[in-house]
């Protein structure tokens, strides 16, 4: 039987029930004075702070700066990770040459490089881009390599027997076969991207969301601090939604993703 419109709306709403309940409880606790708004502003206070920051343009400029840093850092680190993942997945020589080195570097928590990075780059853009790039590099690299490695060798043999040139073989067999794994790397990388950027902006920046939050802390503007945290949550959700959209578009052939 086809589910009725009401059932479908209910199904859509279910995931949001818990967040809504928390918000309501929070608002009630703040309004009744159970929780001091000096430490935890009411949701309405956060919305008001957001409205004010949006009207002054401060929110947009900080948001766009953070977004640009995230995107550029991601493109650099993800691009290099993807290229090296491909190279090492396809060429034994390349792998033997670089993989051991990369695995050694991988075990260093990239945020532990912050003091060094500040020494090298100061608190310029370079520092943030470098950290984000290093952070996203490894998940993209490792999953691209794994994806290429795990392409079904029977399909590769079929492609060869049917006369595919190396370029066609890569485009039609190897890359599509590695794509599910590459998407896993992409999701990890997007999470690490925000995490790294926020930490970097909190520690050393003169603009961006992290900077906005740190400055608000100095003036005891708790509502702005919470606003920044809520925006992080929203950005994370947005990044995840984009990946899901891409997965549904590019992995439609895979029954595991068709109705995801």
């Amino acid at each position: 039987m086809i589910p009725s419109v009401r059932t479908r709306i209910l199904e859509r709403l279910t995931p949001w029930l818990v967040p809504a309940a928390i918000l309501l409880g929070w608002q009630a606790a703040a309004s009744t004075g159970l929780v001091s708004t000096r430490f935890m502003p009411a949701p309405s206070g956060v919305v008001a702070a957001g409205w004010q920051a949006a009207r002054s343009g401060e929110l947009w400029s900080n948001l766009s700066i953070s977004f640009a840093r995230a995107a550029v850092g991601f493109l650099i680190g993800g691009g290099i990770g993807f290229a090296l993942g491909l190279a090492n997945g396809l060429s034994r020589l390349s792998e033997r040459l670089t993989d051991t080195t990369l695995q050694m570097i991988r075990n260093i928590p990239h945020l532990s490089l912050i003091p060094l990075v500040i020494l090298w780059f100061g608190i310029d853009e370079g520092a943030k881009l470098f950290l984000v790039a290093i952070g996203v590099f490894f998940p993209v690299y490792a999953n691209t390599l794994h994806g290429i490695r795990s392409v079904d060798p029977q399909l590769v043999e079929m492609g060869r027997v049917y006369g595919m040139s190396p370029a066609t073989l890569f485009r039609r067999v190897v890359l599509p076969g590695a794509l599910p794994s590459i998407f896993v790397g992409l999701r990890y990388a997007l999470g690490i991207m925000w995490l790294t950027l926020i930490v970097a902006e909190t520690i050393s920046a003169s603009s961006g969301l992290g900077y906005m939050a740190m400055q608000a802390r100095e003036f005891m503007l708790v509502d702005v601090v919470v606003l920044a945290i809520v925006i992080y949550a929203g950005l994370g959700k947005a990044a995840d939604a984009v990946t899901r959209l891409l997965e549904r578009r590019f992995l439609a052939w895979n029954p595991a993703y068709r109705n995801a």
Partner: protein
Amino acid sequence: MLATALRVPEDAQTRDPKPREVAASRAPARAAPPSATGIGVTLRDLRKDFDGHTVIEGLDLHIPAGQFVAVVGRSGCGKSTLLRLILGLEQASAGRIALETRAVRTPPKRIMFQEPRLLPWARVVDNVAVGLGEGGSRAERRARAEAALAEVGLSEKAGNWPATLSGGQRQRVALARALVSRPGLLALDEPLGALDALTRIDMQAMIERIWRAQGFTAILVTHDVAEAVAMADRILVVEAGRIALDVAVDVPRPRRRGDADLAALEGRILDHLLSERAPS
């Protein structure tokens, strides 16, 4: 009656100690139907080693263009290696492989594997088009792929993902992919081994019908003797890297399942295979 139906070339009946000397006398078991599109295969003193271990040794064989040959044997006897050598998927350690055709442009060689090996990320029709190689316009490729799909009775599945097909349907798509380029030689490496009994019989009939219509040379590797007897003009029993038995199946087509002559031939080949177990 049996005697005429199941004629065996003299030299193939016993394992001969000096295969090179009898090579010339190993002529085709009977006159093959003339084929303009098929590829003829001649092997001379073929040998193949893997890591110092000899899989095929001193093998001589002629397959006339257009013949349907079944190769049977125990696991590890070298029958799949023989197929891969003929296709050029493996390099021979010694000996010569000659392919000849009467066609002006050499038709391609194609293989059907035991697994369908379809690209899961390509629609059924695009999977079939893989068999066309790289040339041709989009529209032309699509038209030819659709024609090949129609031949295996799967026109309505052209836009499906392979994951939505049954095992038998996937193997039919693989057959369409192998046939879409009008091959001169079709190698079948136990392509029906994973299918259920009824689907197998349907597929056997389909392959036989298309083979009769197109006239390619077919080499079927199988360990199902009944399948070999039902489909082939000629059956080769491979044993320890040599051809131990070379039998013509002179039973007219279309063949009926359970035919007495076929059953008798099947019994004889099985006896031969089973007797290999106890070397005297």
